[in-house]
């Protein structure tokens, strides 16, 4: 490498380094897509994410619809077939991605910014996003693959427990079904319903476009405009119905020929932007969210050696996402482990953390804040979250001070109002004790 080029690159590094949280640029495209952009000039690459409010929560009576629609976008577009689309991306080293969970449906592109690579990749990405053909041969193949995926779930105690947990926790709410659907619903899906779903939800006003990379604002505007102009304007998706928390705890036991019992326990938790977010987030960090140093890990793994992995986490969603606890243990220890897990939660709800625990948690969360934003892909994920859930633009900037403001009393108060150890949905999947 030429020495002068190294010099230039190094001075570039020096010029842009060290900033607490990135400056987010935000605007709307002409037809109403919301755009979030952070320049990252150091690496000659760009990440683009387009997120739609088109996840499984929009499946209606057809579980699997959102996922299959999303999976079909790169199967045929603008008259090109799957092979041609894949070749277009891969010829220039670009990475196309698509995924669909309960809230969000996502399309993503990672590409070099070199024009010879980027322009063809962007052209194809735009096509896939705005001109999908939904070819019937692909539809049948992916439908079959989804059915095989559902079959594979049956050999995984983890997947079995998760499906049962969501179903029992959410009852008739759209979050109850799995994004992958079930055998009946997937078999019943039709191309017509996919087309309708796309037309209703893959529209500009229902989209958030995220860009992070070595481009300037003008270029980001051009790209966002190109992506969004091919979409119909449409409307943003309607609000989801509220989650009605279960009134009574319930324990579900499912036989499976495994040597361990997988335990999942939980209740409805919090939504994005929830008023109790920080109190509950910091509280749970102490209880079960901080890996090897959490209370649960200490009780279950460190003291008793009952499980390799034990955790609890809030998954904040558009509506109340789950507050989920889990572990796996040898079948004959399942009862004991569940008891310890419940007890730990009850004690925590009652007493809250100690002052020392709260200080340690704050040190961990705020002292490691920079780690959350140390790559383009992590920044892009945060932007998608901020955009999709309409969080304030200073969300990252104020994060640390909001964590630091949490008190023991606030945690105790939030836990007593929101968390009910006696009304948990508990699922046990496993075999008989030997």
């Amino acid at each position, binding site marked *: 490498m030429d020495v002068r080029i190294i010099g230039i690159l190094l001075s570039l590094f020096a010029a842009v380094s060290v900033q607490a949280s990135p400056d987010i640029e935000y605007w709307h495209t002409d037809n109403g897509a919301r755009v979030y952009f952070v320049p990252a000039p150091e690496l000659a690459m760009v990440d683009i994410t387009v997120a739609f409010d088109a996840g499984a929560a929009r499946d209606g009576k057809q579980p699997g619809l959102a996922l299959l629609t999303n999976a079909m976008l790169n199967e045929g577009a603008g008259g090109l077939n799957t092979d041609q689309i894949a070749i277009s991306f891969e010829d220039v080293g670009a990475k196309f991605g698509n995924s669909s969970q309960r809230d969000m449906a996502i399309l993503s592109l990672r590409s070099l910014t070199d024009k010879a690579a980027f322009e063809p990749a962007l052209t194809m990405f735009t096509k896939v996003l705005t001109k999908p053909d939904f070819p019937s041969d692909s539809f049948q193949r992916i439908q079959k693959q989804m059915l095989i995926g559902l079959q594979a779930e049956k*050999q995984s105690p983890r997947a079995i427990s998760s499906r049962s947990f969501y179903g029992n926790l959410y009852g008739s709410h759209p979050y109850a079904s799995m994004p992958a659907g079930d055998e009946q619903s997937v078999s019943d899906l039709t191309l017509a319903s996919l087309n309708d779903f796309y037309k209703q939800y893959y529209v500009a006003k229902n989209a958030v476009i995220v860009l992070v990379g070595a481009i300037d604002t003008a270029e980001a505007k051009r790209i966002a405009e190109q992506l969004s102009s091919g979409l119909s304007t449409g409307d943003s998706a309607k609000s989801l119905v509220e989650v009605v928390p279960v009134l009574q705890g319930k324990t579900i036991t499912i036989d499976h020929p495994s040597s361990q019992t997988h335990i999942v326990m939980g209740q409805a938790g919090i939504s994005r932007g929830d008023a109790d977010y920080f109190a509950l987030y910091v509280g749970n960090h102490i209880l079960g969210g901080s890996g090897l140093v959490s209370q649960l890990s200490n009780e279950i793994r460190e003291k008793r*050696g009952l499980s*390799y992995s034990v955790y609890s986490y809030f998954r904040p969603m558009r509506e109340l996402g789950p507050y989920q606890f889990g572990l796996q243990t040898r079948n004959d220890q399942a009862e004991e482990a569940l008891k310890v897990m419940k007890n730990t939660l009850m004690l925590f709800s009652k007493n809250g953390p100690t002052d020392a625990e709260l200080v340690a948690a704050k040190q961990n969360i705020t002292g490691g804040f920079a780690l959350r934003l140390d790559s383009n892909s992590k920044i892009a994920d945060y932007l998608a979250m901020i955009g999709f859930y309409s969080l304030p633009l200073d969300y990252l900037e104020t994060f640390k001070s909001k964590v630091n403001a949490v008190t023991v009393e606030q945690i105790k108060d939030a836990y007593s109002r929101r968390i009910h150890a006696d009304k948990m949905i508990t699922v046990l999947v496993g075999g008989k004790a030997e």
Partner: protein
Amino acid sequence: MLTKFKTLIGLLFVIPTVAAANVSEYQLDNGLKLIVKEDHRAPVVVSQVWYKVGSSYEHNGITGISHVLEHMMFKGTESLGPNEFSQIIAANGGRENAFTGRDYTAYFQTLEKDRLEVSFRLEAERMRKLVIDDAELLKEREVVAEERRMRTEDNPHALVREAFNAMAFVNSPYHHPVIGWMSDINNYEASDLRQWYQKWYAPNNATVVVVGDVEPEAVYTLAKKYFGPLKPETTATVKPQIEVEQRGKRTIEVKAPAELPYMMMGWKVPVVKTIEKEQSWEPYALEMLAGILDGGASARFSRYLVREEEIAASVGVGYGLFSRLADMFVVVGTPSKGHSIADLQRAVMTQIEKLQTELVTEKELKRIKAQVVANAVYERDSVFYQGMQIGMLETIGLDWKLTDEYVENVQVVTAEQVQAVAVKYFKDKGLTVAELVPMPLDGKKSLPAAGGRHGR
């Protein structure tokens, strides 16, 4: 340097790599190696300590001991109580963990850049002053047993993989699983662990890799302060344990509760570390061959086996060209509905035979090369991954500069070379095949009709 430039110019894009310029290498008097890579994009640093020990250093009876020792490394030292290491890192805003592989055991912390000293102080402490307490070990054996149940015993694919490796490798230590056999896990003694620790955990058997917003000389000074006083150890010479020549196809069935069939096919192949100098291009040709078959949605497996013929529900390739000992080129897959394992194996073989008899197209070669060039840029988005690459290469006894040379070496692979390795290595003589035979999950229900087994 000039030749490198020439290779690059032939490409569609010029690689904007800073190459080796931002990497500094040091060695302390006690033999500890320090490699620092600057990445000033964010005010963070990753610190990794790599030891040259892993499951391929183990013999039967103590399999998995490197892994359980990795667990015990969090259980206290002369001046730290059990779990205190993790608590200190957490209080400093750090994230940490460790991993054990066949050829290495590594410990890492990611921290804001001004906390690097915390990592060095603690890692230096546990490099030579670990305390292995009998009661803590008994508990940790249970934790590892649970880990094995979760990862292997209740996972039909993992059971197949374990049986597959145990049959394919006769005397190579790649024979046994990283986590160890359950019977060995249940019988480690504290004295076994103390010996293992004494033997391998020493500055002259370790590489410290630091990547992030740091100044190399300052890191070096810090390393001298904390790791410098540690005494080196006379480490044992590792026996070569060269795998005996395979003299024919090996097949194995694994019966386990499952819904779907699954298979693995593996051929014995060389890796960068084991290949002779004159054939040093071969692992890169195999890497290219892996890309032709499975390098994305446009590659041959996806295109023909999944989409066109719809024989495979999923099919993929596993080949890593960086390992300490000779390894396998592996194909794994599940047949689609209405097809058998035998159908899938035939389809895979048809693709292999095509590679043996026809040259791959220039378009395909160019496509894989474009992906390799782009990935080299994408990989630099992660400080952790950059550290991984350096640490892994150094620990298996290669030069970390291979991360840069890798791109160049793949660039120069020709269609003829891909054909040559396909002919040379994809022979039945060196083939091992494992098959999962699904057993009913509820002990009653008959096997699913889809993807049922047919005779071979």
